């Protein structure tokens, strides 16, 4: 029988929430690595029992974890992330050059095909790759050595590479996004990269339409349409239909177009989800109402989804890696909040239930759809 497994990273540990295909009754496992920040947990598409985890701490730094049995047991693997060559500098908050320095792993993206290959997006922004199940990591340095690298600068949350998308139709193509540098694409397996930010407009940089410097919060893609990308930017929800070469705004009638996550329905490539947040200064839902917004037209026209979500006095945030969709039918949507709730919908967003109420602040949510 089919089922789902939610991998939840929080400020104080990792949790695994499991259910059958009905997605009504849930089993909670955890905390795994209690007391540590678990930035991200993600399973291999090629082997769902293989899960990678980023475990971090202000005291003890970065630890990388790997499970070979679906999260029952874990082993620490390699945690050395050495930049390729002389790291050089990027731009600091005050505009001065600042040495590139590893801080933590924000996002893990296992290969679509090989359980032992996994990509890591790190702070200070760079892309790393392991081909031995996480034992050793090598920088995909063509990205950071792109000519604009010295001009990248951090957002308030740090200069992180948070989004990694492998093109399912073209193994040489990959997309990444960095706060606050923007989106980049490689068409040659990572050797060279180019910024793909044409059409983005950001008022907080001197040239609002600059080639780099945009605070992209998240990019999502539907596997059936790899050239169509959806972006939640610092402000603005954007869309590209040419692999990121050009973007147009699709914020439409959203109550606010600030937010962090964005995701695409598993079976409807034009159905997308965002969670509007009041502003960059007030990271909580407008009017204290937690609303997921769904567009069935690939943007521009949006409808609020509220059934089962708090519609008063709700002041949580939903972080960029904290929304995910399963591949069951109907499609399941899940998101976690900084208030420790993980909400799930087993009907494409029409209605929601709090799977758990009181976890630590949720940093990330990923789902595995199990056969």
């Amino acid at each position, binding site marked *: 029988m089919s089922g789902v497994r939610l991998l939840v990273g929080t400020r104080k540990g990792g949790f695994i929430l499991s259910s059958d295909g009905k997605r009504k009754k849930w089993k909670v496992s955890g905390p795994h690595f209690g007391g540590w920040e678990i930035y991200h947990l993600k399973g291999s598409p090629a082997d769902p029992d293989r899960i990678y985890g980023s475990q971090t701490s202000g*005291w003890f730094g970065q*630890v990388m974890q790997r499970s070979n049995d679906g999260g029952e047991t874990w082993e620490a693997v390699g945690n*050395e992330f050495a930049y390729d060559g002389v790291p050089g500098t990027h731009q600091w908050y005050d505009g001065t050059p600042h040495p590139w320095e590893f801080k933590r792993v924000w996002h893990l993206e296992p290969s679509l095909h090989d359980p032992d290959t996994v990509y890591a997006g790190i702070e200070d922004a760079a892309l790393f790759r392991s081909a031995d199940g996480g034992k050793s990591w090598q920088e995909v340095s063509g990205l950071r050595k792109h000519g604009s690298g010295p001009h990248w600068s951090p957002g308030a949350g740090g200069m992180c590479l948070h989004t990694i998308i492998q093109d399912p139709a073209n193994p040489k193509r990959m997309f990444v996004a960095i706060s606050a540098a923007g989106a980049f694409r490689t068409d040659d397996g990572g050797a060279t990269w180019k910024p793909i930010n044409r059409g983005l407009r950001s008022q907080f940089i001197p040239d609002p339409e600059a080639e780099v410097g945009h605070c992209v919060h998240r990019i999502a893609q539907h596997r059936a349409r790899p050239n169509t990308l959806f972006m939640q930017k610092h402000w603005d929800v954007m869309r590209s239909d040419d692999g990121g070469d050009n973007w147009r705004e699709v914020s439409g009638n959203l109550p606010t177009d600030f937010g962090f996550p964005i995701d695409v329905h598993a079976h409807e490539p034009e159905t997308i989800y965002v969670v509007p947040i009041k502003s960059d200064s007030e990271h909580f839902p407008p009017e204290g109402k937690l609303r997921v917004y769904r567009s069935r037209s690939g943007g521009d026209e949006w409808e609020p989804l509220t059934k089962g979500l708090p519609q008063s006095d709700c002041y949580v945030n939903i972080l960029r890696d904290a929304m995910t969709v399963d591949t069951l039918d109907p499609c399941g949507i899940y998101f976690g909040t900084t208030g420790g709730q993980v909400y799930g919908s087993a009907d494409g967003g029409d209605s929601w239930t709090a799977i758990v109420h009181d976890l630590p602040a949720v940093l990330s949510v990923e789902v595995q759809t199990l056969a």
Partner: protein
Amino acid sequence: MIRVVLPFHLRNLARVGEEVEIEVTGPPTLHTVLDALESQYPVLRGTIRGHNGGRRRPFLRFFACEQDLSHEPTDTPLPEPVVRGVEPFLIVGATAGG
């Protein structure tokens, strides 16, 4: 034999109790004790200091015999009672955070 007391999270990471015993080759110093500790428990590499003998992580302290050795040069010999195994070498996490 050097006795090393680890903070809670590193004990869990290394899957050991509060105190471990380390055999050090050559004169015991901050550097050689940490080398030996990381050799015996590779999972601790990078969690106490940078990789390849790098800098102490800022929120950790090294105490022994009621002295703070955190800011001493890494080739400083450890106090005699620590070398003889009478007193432990303590790795302590700073009190901070929520």
